[in-house]
């Protein structure tokens, strides 16, 4: 292995990706420490922690979702359980994105060619990408460990837990480095990486429920088996570190031998012409939004399916625990309604994020230069925007309806009683005005001030934060009221105010109209 040009490659990667790296690390650390802090505040007495432990281990439902935590009857265990689901996705994603951005994305953009034309050995950019990613993971790990110690978890256990999550991210960083060598496009790296992650999740779930060695087949299982709040198996860290290193070494070896721009997994051929439908404004808009929508739909279906399918266990285990019910903001009403209310709020977050992402892809059309080409034809700006608005609106509605149907089916299967489909659908639809309000805000930014469009993601983050943690953290009412989802009234548990929904809808309409007016008057492309 040659390390010629490593210093230059490291400098280049840090300089070009530092903002993304810093944001990822800070956001993850804040989420982790925020969760730890809110858990520590909620479960301040041994009795409360004991109650929580009994609740989550009563059935298999939460074991499947969050994992089987050794030492669940300690503060650290509760934090690990609460953070389990998020961590299982966010840390692998951190590893994948850090490496994918630094390797195949650079190659696809043609920048790797420039770098390799200089005095830089062929494998060095991969090495540099892995080193930068590892450094970011180490920093995240340290931040996690410090944050946990601060809220009162013993230092050694904090460090082992943080290190097990860091090692998890490292496995996927190594995997992404390898995938970046064999996949032609960056999206392939993400796609295959997420497939491996999904398989790991399933294996870990199966192993945890059956209490068998299957857990040991999964990188998520390795992190769990370090048992930071139980037996503290430091040696278990060796497995992910070794696996990640082997994958990384493999990636470096392939990078040293392969041609620039080559890949094992290449695209195939497709149709030689566009159908009549694809040529129409609606058809192309649908082609543009389809991949994103399918991803969000899959997420909504998984959430609705899990919550519905595990409704029985959820009712028995979680809602029987008053502290937990309070944290979830469901203290009154029928238990089944509580499951629906919680799930529909989750689905509403997914739909809101989906809307903002879809409008972000309009901006991508513009910055990539495709909008300019599109508008140089007979298509007017209004019709272009209308076609996209129709497709986005229909897509959001579709996600709401499919998720409601899946949830109803899951509940019926789990509880053995027919679910109130109409009520579940109505609860989902009640969130539409709030979702459209955020979508309208994003669209207004696109029409009036397109450079500020990323700010819409801050709104999504805020809505998510309020929806997930608002009730538990006992935030002041005015802060909760800033999130449009608060005004929906938690259907079917609470009563839905028609007036509030009308106001939300009217605000959304005003935003959409101002977006249309602004878009008709501004330059395209506007940088």
């Amino acid at each position, binding site marked *: 292995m040659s390390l010629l040009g490593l210093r230059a490659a490291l400098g280049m990667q840090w300089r070009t990706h530092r903002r993304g790296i810093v944001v990822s690390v800070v956001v993850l650390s804040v989420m982790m420490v925020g969760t730890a802090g809110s858990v520590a505040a909620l479960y301040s007495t041994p009795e409360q922690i004991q109650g929580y432990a009994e609740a989550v281990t009563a059935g298999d439902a939460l074991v499947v979702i969050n994992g089987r935590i050794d030492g669940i009857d300690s503060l650290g265990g509760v934090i690990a359980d609460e953070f389990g689901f998020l961590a299982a996705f966010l840390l692998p994603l951190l590893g994948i994105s850090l490496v994918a951005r630094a390797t195949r994305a650079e190659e696809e953009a043609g920048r790797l060619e420039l770098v390799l034309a200089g005095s830089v050995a062929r494998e060095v950019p991969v090495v540099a990408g892995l080193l930068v990613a590892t450094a970011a993971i180490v920093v995240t790990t340290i931040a996690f460990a410090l944050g946990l110690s601060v809220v009162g978890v013993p230092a050694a256990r904090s460090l082992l837990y943080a290190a097990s999550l860091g090692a998890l991210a490292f496995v996927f960083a190594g995997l992404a480095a390898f995938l970046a060598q064999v996949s*032609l*496009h960056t999206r392939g790296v993400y796609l295959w990486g997420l497939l491996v992650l999904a398989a790991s999740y399933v294996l870990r779930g199966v192993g945890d429920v059956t209490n068998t060695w299957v857990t040991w087949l999964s990188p998520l299982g390795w992190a769990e088996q370090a048992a930071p709040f139980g037996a503290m198996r430091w040696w278990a860290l060796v497995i992910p570190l070794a696996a990640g290193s082997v994958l990384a070494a493999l990636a470096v070896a392939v990078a040293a031998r392969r041609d620039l721009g080559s890949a094992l997994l*290449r*695209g*195939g*051929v*497709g*149709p*030689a*012409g*566009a159908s009549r439908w*694809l*040529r*129409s404004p609606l058809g*192309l808009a649908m*082609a*543009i939004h389809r*991949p994103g929508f399918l991803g969000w739909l899959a997420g909504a279906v998984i959430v609705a399916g899990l919550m519905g399918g595990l409704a029985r266990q959820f009712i028995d285990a979680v809602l029987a625990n008053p502290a937990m019910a309070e944290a979830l903001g469901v203290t009154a009403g029928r238990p089944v309604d509580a499951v629906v209310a919680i799930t529909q709020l989750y689905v509403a977050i997914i739909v809101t994020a989906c809307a903002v992402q879809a409008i972000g892809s309009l901006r991508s059309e513009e910055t*990539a*230069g*495709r909008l*300019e*080409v*599109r*508008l*140089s*034809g*007979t*298509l*007017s*700006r209004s*019709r272009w925007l209308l076609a996209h608005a129709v497709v986005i609106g229909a897509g959001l509605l579709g996600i709401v309806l499919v998720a409601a149907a899946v949830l109803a089916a899951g509940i019926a299967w789990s509880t053995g009683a027919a679910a109130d489909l109409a009520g579940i659908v109505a609860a989902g639809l009640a969130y539409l005005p709030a979702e459209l309000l955020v979508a309208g805000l994003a669209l207004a930014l696109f029409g009036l001030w397109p450079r500020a469009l990323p700010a819409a993601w801050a709104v999504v983050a805020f809505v998510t934060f309020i929806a997930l943690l608002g009730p538990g953290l006992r935030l002041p009412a005015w802060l909760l009221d800033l999130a449009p989802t608060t005004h929906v009234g938690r259907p079917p548990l609470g009563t839905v105010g028609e007036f509030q929904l009308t106001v939300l809808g009217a605000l959304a309409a005003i935003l959409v109209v101002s977006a249309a007016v602004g878009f008709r008057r501004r*330059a*395209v*492309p506007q940088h």
Partner: protein
Amino acid sequence: MHASTSVIRTERLTKTFGPSRALDGLDLDVAAGEVHGFLGPNGAGKTTTIRIVLGLMRASGGHVELFGRDPWREAATLHARLAYVAGDVALWPGLTGGQCLDVLGATHGGVREDRRAALIERFDLDPTKRVRDYSKGNRQKVALIAALAADVDLLVLDEPTSGLDPLMEQVFQDVIRERRAAGCTVLLSSHILGEVEALADRVTIIRHGRTVSSGTLADLRQQARMHVHAVTLDAPAGLDRVAGIADVVSTPVDRRVESRFSSDAEHLDAAIGLLHAARIEALTVTPPSLDELFLRAYDEPSRSLGVVAPGAPATPVR
């Protein structure tokens, strides 16, 4: 009068982006049926001009007409009569080349199927490959075929051949000639001067958002200096005293005299007269190449062909 013959016309066009002035009194006149070369270095304002002409951006000042109408107000209606190839060709990465071609064609108000098939053949394009697997040249071919296969009155091409190889460049030039023969007007912004020289009936050269020069290539050459190389039996007398003649170098070679000088069109006759008096044995008069015209327009704007006051083209607009 203008409206009847001009397909694109801008007068004193200005465009500001915040403090920077992209266009500063730009005049452009593209007559029906001609191939009009639009030349200027990077950042001169070619793309901004085209975007204003297409109604994608609004002019800060001045006047712009497309088919005699206001492109900002009637963008979509006017676009039915034109096809546009952008400088940076951007296609939808998930679609195949053929699908993108049809989608682009649909924005141009449809493509002629026979022409589409013939052009795919001539440009040697594989329409079944995904766009993200295409090279730059192939992406450019997709955009070009979509525009060239459309049944339109005007083609607006912004540096359309920067990624094409010489063979494809030849195909491109052939197709443009065919389209002009069929009555199509072409606005061709390009860096490839040979291409403009081969295709353009008239050219407009801009610099810093202003028109530096405009006219037929012959007109422009008229205003520029020709290079004369002569071999005479006697030494030509008085060459350096003729007003429009410069850079005179006369050297005796083998009992003859070899002279080199440059002359403007007006004084060429006098120069040849002097050479004739010295008994010409060989004579070459080289008109300026477009490269030369172009470079002169930039190197010495004050002394260049068509010294223009802002807003007035060098030669009378037809």
